[in-house]
């Protein structure tokens, strides 16, 4: 199952015609350069995270999105004329990517982040089109039929959703061209708000599941943290204390996006796919631009106190006092890697002290990682995979609640306790246990 962001309804924007008028005609780039550029844009846009399944042919789709109303599947976007997008003209391709309109005029589900892709430049769209047509092998494989029953299966109401919530390409492009302090921050904003579609997970959503903000130009809501996806809670990417990236340096962000790990934490859940398929392939300059942009985002909760390390929990454990709730479970199951002082051994074993994932108001991510374990796959610049074991077979809901409470309370984390009932209810949304999810990393 893949993260999904979706709702029904929308109205067709007349803006499509305007976009067509802007489509580039001739370019100096050689076809080979364009394919390479297009591949890079595809990586920056994280296309394969949803359109290539593990062990499947590239861009053949078939990834399942389980929704309360039934399952939908990502489409085949290889250049096969019958099953993929081989018959799309560039204008049709641009309309699908930026406006969410299929070649036959039907609306795409907004699991496809076209409200963000609307910001993509004509030049990037052109390269992306050339790449998909010339740099990707066609796969003659139909996507499974979507499993949403009528009447929810009707796509036409989504026209209204698009009309209300998706920006027109013109307005999106205008926002892209707003004033930035530096060219690097402008580039970072383009990548994060546009192709990177970070807000699809990391921004809060409204009543119709629309992202409440699509760029940083409209206040501090954008990237201020999202609703749980596959059980995991996306943190704020703004300069929020405790819940955001206030404690991360520019180098920390660059390291995280290129390797999925840094001195402050490790990727898990959907973010591992985002790094694996996407950000690890980006140039150091682009990653630095993204980091500088993220570092420029003012906190959404400006009055939150900063995290400060408190050595009391570590001192107690190091003197043999494991009387605190959950402390004994922590020593027996967690401390070998994450240490009694909570600092871990980054980047191999992430710190728990001061970690926004741990301190979140919602304990979901932490509970799920303890229950199911977590896998960080090897990346090209950091080939080592690390696997945290799953404890759901060994620890009771009470013990997990206890240890999570200990972790959330110790080392200055000062986050609220968790009870066994919460852990039990979270078992329903638990991701697969690490060794059950194939392939298991091989180091």
């Amino acid at each position, binding site marked *: 199952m893949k993260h999904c962001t979706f709702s029904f309804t929308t109205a067709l924007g007349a803006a499509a015609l305007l976009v067509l008028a802007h489509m580039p005609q001739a370019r100096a780039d050689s076809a080979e350069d364009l394919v390479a550029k297009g591949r890079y844009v595809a990586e920056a846009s994280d296309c394969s995270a949803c359109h290539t399944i593990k062990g499947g042919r590239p861009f053949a789709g078939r990834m399942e999105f389980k929704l309360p109303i039934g399952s939908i599947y990502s489409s085949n976007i290889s250049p096969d004329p019958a099953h993929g997008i081989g018959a799309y003209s560039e204008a049709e391709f641009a309309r699908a990517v930026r406006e969410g309109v299929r070649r036959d005029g039907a609306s795409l589900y907004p699991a496809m982040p076209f409200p963000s892709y609307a910001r993509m430049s004509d030049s990037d769209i052109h390269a992306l089109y050339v790449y998909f047509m010339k740099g990707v092998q066609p796969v003659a494989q139909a996507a499974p039929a979507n499993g949403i029953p009528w009447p929810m299966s009707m796509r036409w109401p989504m026209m209204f959703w698009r009309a209300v919530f998706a920006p027109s390409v013109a307005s999106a492009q205008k926002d892209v061209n707003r004033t930035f302090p530096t060219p690097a921050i402008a580039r970072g904003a383009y990548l994060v708000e546009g192709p990177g579609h970070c807000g699809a997970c990391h921004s809060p959503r409204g009543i119709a599941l629309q992202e409440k903000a699509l760029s940083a130009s409209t206040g501090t809501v954008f990237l201020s943290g999202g609703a749980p996806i596959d059980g995991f809670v996306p943190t704020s990417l703004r300069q929020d204390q405790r819940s955001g990236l206030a404690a991360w340096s520019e180098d920390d962000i660059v390291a995280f996006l290129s390797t999925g790990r840094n001195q402050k934490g490790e990727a898990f859940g959907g973010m591992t796919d985002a790094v694996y398929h996407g950000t690890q392939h980006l140039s150091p300059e682009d990653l630095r631009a993204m980091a500088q942009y993220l570092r420029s985002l003012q906190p959404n909760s400006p009055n939150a106190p900063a995290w400060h390390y408190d050595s009391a929990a570590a001192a107690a454990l190091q003197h043999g006092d494991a009387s605190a709730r959950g402390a004994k479970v922590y020593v027996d199951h967690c401390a070998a890697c994450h240490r009694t002082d909570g600092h871990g051994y980054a980047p191999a074993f992430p710190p728990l002290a001061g970690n926004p994932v741990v301190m979140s108001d919602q304990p979901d991510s932490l509970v799920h990682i303890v229950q199911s374990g977590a896998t960080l796959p*090897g990346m090209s*610049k950091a*080939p080592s995979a*690390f*696997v945290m074991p799953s404890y759901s077979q060994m620890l009771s809901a009470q013990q997990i609640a206890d240890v999570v409470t200990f972790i959330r309370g110790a080392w200055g984390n000062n986050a609220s306790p968790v009870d066994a009932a919460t852990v039990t209810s979270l078992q329903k949304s638990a991701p697969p246990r690490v060794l059950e999810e194939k392939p*298991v990393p091989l180091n």
Partner: protein
Amino acid sequence: MTTKKTDAIVIGAGWAGSILAKELTEAGLSVTILERGEDRATAVEGDYPTSIDELRGAIRHRLFQNLSQSTVTIRNTIDQTAVPYRRLAAFLPGEGVGGAGLHWSGVHFRVAPDDLALRTNVVARYGKSFIPEGMNLQDYDVTYEELEPFFDKAEKVFGTSGEPYTIKGKVAGTGNPFAPDRSDAFPLPAMRDVYSASLFKKAAANVGYHPYSLPAANASAQYTNPYGVQMGPCNFCGYCSGYDCYMYSKASPNVNILPALRQDPKFTLITKAHVLKVDLDSDGKKATGVTYLDLRTNQQVQLQADLVIISAFQFHNVHLMLLSGIGEPYDPVKNTGTIGRNFVYQTITTSRAWLPSKQYTNLFVGAGGAGVAIDDFNSMNFDHGPLGFVGGSPVWVNQAGVKPIAAAIGGPGGKAPTWGEGYKDAMVETYRHSLTIDAHGSNMAYRDIYLDLDPTYKNAYGQPLLRMTFTWKDNDIRMNQYVVSKIEPIMKEMGATRYALGQLHANDVFDTRRYQTTHLGGGAVMGADPKTSAINRYLQSWDVSNVFVIGASAFPQGMGYNPTGMVAALAYWAAYHIRTTYLKNPGPMVQA
């Protein structure tokens, strides 16, 4: 039979094979590793806490060779009939990806430079007549200076923790004063000394020896190696030898090399591929590839290649050469041939000291590669003249973590009762308050100690088993006794309430039922003379020039040090010369 083609075949996915495969893919070759066992992942083998299940691990041999398919036969002397080794004990070959490099302890030495030219050094210091009749004392034909860059490289890949003595000729630390000069520091600082090791360090210094912290491929801190792979730090849990380290802190091919290698599209790993033989051309001078049995389908596959690297466990290398007809089998009667000649092992005996009841050694704590040693009685570091033997032993406290079952099987030691309340009291005292000191020494090569094909027993695939003819010899027994006698003053200085010295005794024979070390060596040794060595100084077969044989099988003598550091350095050394010389002009790199 299916036929396929690759540039280079590497047999075995242990340290030697993984190093060669990494180096050869870096050189641009397509490389296929054939591994008899399963793939092995820390996520599975190191899944905590099932990974530290002692019964499944060290006792039931989770990561070791499955002897029901193939084993060796063993006899002590040439006039006996050898019988199959049916139950692992004395030595523990690995199986599966990582090989013995996955279940090793992690003691990571370089080499005592004098050991590389032991014959030359013994003759120079004590005269030719000092060498006992029947001892095949030989030089490696490679110097420490030549190998130094490759020791350095291996330590950086392994993330080795240690304290240097000299770097580029200048004293740079408090490490082993007998250790050879280094071009660089260890990549990580030495592991901390556990209590027993710190007592040994103090006492050994007080009695005039030169103690140092062992170099260990157990990471003393978080580490990223030159291939970009990452290790966690050791927490002294004690589950090293026999286990896959769940902390990613014991170096293994799986953790330190294969994550990078697996990303290379030129690299292929085929598991459950049991190599039956190296295929030779019609005149037997060139290998054309190998034939292996796909253990999943039971079909034979012929894999063709320009280069074949034999890099399995020591005796499997020798076995495969004999089965393939590479080189002339050794005949101890005629004293001809080289394949199987100079088969060696190591001597090891363990002595125990009991401390007063207020001093807790807590034997459950430990790390496989860590401890404190002295080299005063190793190699050529002392005068053998009046002693009349060749060789020596480092002496150490290497508290590697004694697990509950092993402790119970080992018993309380000394003169304790073997049952009842007295036994229980003694067990508690031993586990809490004792420590052990090993003499881990050399074993020389002898004319009538060797490997050949067994005339009777066959493996599951119909091939003759390898036969070991091995026992202890007077030279090595006396060496062990001498070195153990030097432990006694340390015991007294430590304030032991009592102690029991473990040593070899005159006329002792090799007993396969007891774990000693798993450090087998020789049988396809390197050297300058094709009459007494199977491979040249670049580990290239004298007889089939596109076959290289990498591993402890190249050691002409069993040295006092643990072998893995030397194996890794030789692997990088051979790979360097394959890359820089052989690939440009394939053929013999040394003229016979």
